[in-house]
């Protein structure tokens, strides 16, 4: 579905990404993890086509990314950003309709009638009661749900998520990831997600890719990737990792630096 071949990206002399190479199977979810400044978001922007790569190749659905026009690409690939939608005066309905933009001709006519699709998605995301409310009257969590609804209306085969849960509280984080997972299972969606929260990443992703200083450190199943040594090496913290009591996914417990360990390090 998506193949990234030896991608480099640099801004002037600064190398942001070096020799990134991986493949994502259709219907699976790849999580990209790594500390701040490791190039996660840049990599996602390269895959979404808004940032050109400096060298290397990205192949989507057996076609190089550069062969797609912006519009053709947006019919197959949707992106959900970290910042939720701005508080503008559009109603929820209007924003959901905007998800059909890639399928409309210059007069605004759609290839297919999308009204039932939009109504179904609004129902599924519990947006039906909010449908006529303007965005600036909604809470951050509700707006992020509208943003998800908009990319669902876009009906992509590939979804890129850029830290979509950053500004949500834990309840909405879980709710949001559950919506995405349900959508993935229903439609065979392929997902690449940049995630800050390692515990969420371990539970929702089939594969994890670890970036560190622009380089690819490891890729594999969460259980193989999230080892104590690797987290220490990449993030520079000393974590405790235990399997989740219900689903067995590796979970990280944070351990504040107490005086004891500071003392130990000094020795």
């Amino acid at each position, binding site marked *: 579905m998506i193949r990234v071949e030896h991608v480099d990206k640099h801004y002037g002399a600064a190398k942001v990404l070096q020799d990134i190479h991986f493949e994502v199977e259709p219907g699976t979810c790849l999580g990209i993890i790594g500390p701040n400044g490791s190039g996660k978001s840049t990599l996602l922007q390269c895959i979404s086509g808004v940032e050109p790569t400096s060298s290397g190749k990205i192949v989507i659905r057996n076609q190089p990314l550069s062969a797609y026009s912006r519009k053709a690409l947006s019919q197959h690939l949707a992106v959900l950003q970290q910042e939720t939608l701005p508080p503008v005066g559009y109603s929820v309905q*209007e924003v959901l309709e*905007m998800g059909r933009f890639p399928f409309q001709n210059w007069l605004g006519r759609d290839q297919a009638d999308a009204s039932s699709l939009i109504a179904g998605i609004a129902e599924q995301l519990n947006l039906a009661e909010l449908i006529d409310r303007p965005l600036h009257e909604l809470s951050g969590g509700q707006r992020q749900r509208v943003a998800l609804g908009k990319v669902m209306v876009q009906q992509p085969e590939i979804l890129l998520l850029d830290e979509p849960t950053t500004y949500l509280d834990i309840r909405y984080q879980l709710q949001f990831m559950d919506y995405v997972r349900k959508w993935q299972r229903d439609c065979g969606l392929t997902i690449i997600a940049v995630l800050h929260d390692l515990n969420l990443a371990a539970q929702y992703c089939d594969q994890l890719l670890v970036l560190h200083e622009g380089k690819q450190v490891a890729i594999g199943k969460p259980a193989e990737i999230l080892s104590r040594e690797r987290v220490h090496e990449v993030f520079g913290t000393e974590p405790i990792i235990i399997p989740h009591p219900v689903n067995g996914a590796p979970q990280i417990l944070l351990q504040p630096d107490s005086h004891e360990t500071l003392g130990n390090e000094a020795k």
Partner: protein
Amino acid sequence: MNRTGLLWGGGGILLLLFTICVSATIGSVHIPLQQIPAILLHQIPWLQDMIPKTWPGSYEQILLKVRIPRIAIGVLVGACLSLSGAAFQGVLRNPLADPYTLGVSSGASVGAAFMIYFGIQYSLVGQWSVPIVAFTTGVLTLWLVMRLAQDEGKIPTERLILAGVVMQAFLGAFVSLLVALSDQTINEIMFWLMGSLSLRGWAYSAVLGPYLVIGFIIVMGYARTMNILALGEREAAHLGIRVDRTKMIILLTATFMTAAAVSVSGVIGFVGLIVPHMIRLLVGSNYKLIVPLSAIGGGIYMVIADTLARSVLAPTEIPLGVVTAFIGAPFFAYLLHRNKKTRRGRMS
């Protein structure tokens, strides 16, 4: 949605026609309101026989040679400026953006001031000398601003606004210098700068008309795209929009319209800033409505302003730029106040 569009559009056009008729009655000779549509319709060859001529010939002369040409250019200038203003605000996503944001007006002013200062305003092609030079220097300024703002083939909005502001300040100083140096008692440069529609015959409308029509079609074609741009440039790119290309096309279109309007009427401030905002407060944030209604609203606003400019202190004319600000600011303040109240009302 379509019904509201038709309602607003129809209402707007009726209001525009009514404003035109009322404005045409006012002047040194009063012409009765009910006769104005009759006189105008009488000019259409097919309708000529159906409308009996019941007015003195002098009325017809005054209307067709003096008042209507002036009203026509007013409608066109107002429509151009506020359409451009809507486009600028939409693309730059900045509420303070107006047609002059990219320095076009100061560019045109430098050209005009230069011509007037050296007394060569009728030298090259008669009355068209100043408009042609002003248009050229206006467009040249745009080119400079774009060059200044460009960064690796992209034009970031912040850089564009800053480049425009810098250019405006620089060229504005140049114009001020010319004003200060000129020793006429009635400063012709100042008058040009403050804008006027007097003594503009049909020819001016014929020149400006095509700019408005083509500009309107292009901007209207991008109305849906501007709606999506309101969600942010990244978001728009992810929905399949070529953001930089779109920005370029709309900004160039709007600027050409502005340069054309400024070169025939001088720098009339406030219209391009305020009319789109008024429309937005009335109908919401949908550009499919904002774009056409801004054009109509700009026309209405300019006709009212120009009527006041030529009638309040007649026979002295008040500079048009002064009137647009004088009536625009209080009205805008009222709309802001009303908007705040209705919003509170809805929340509670």
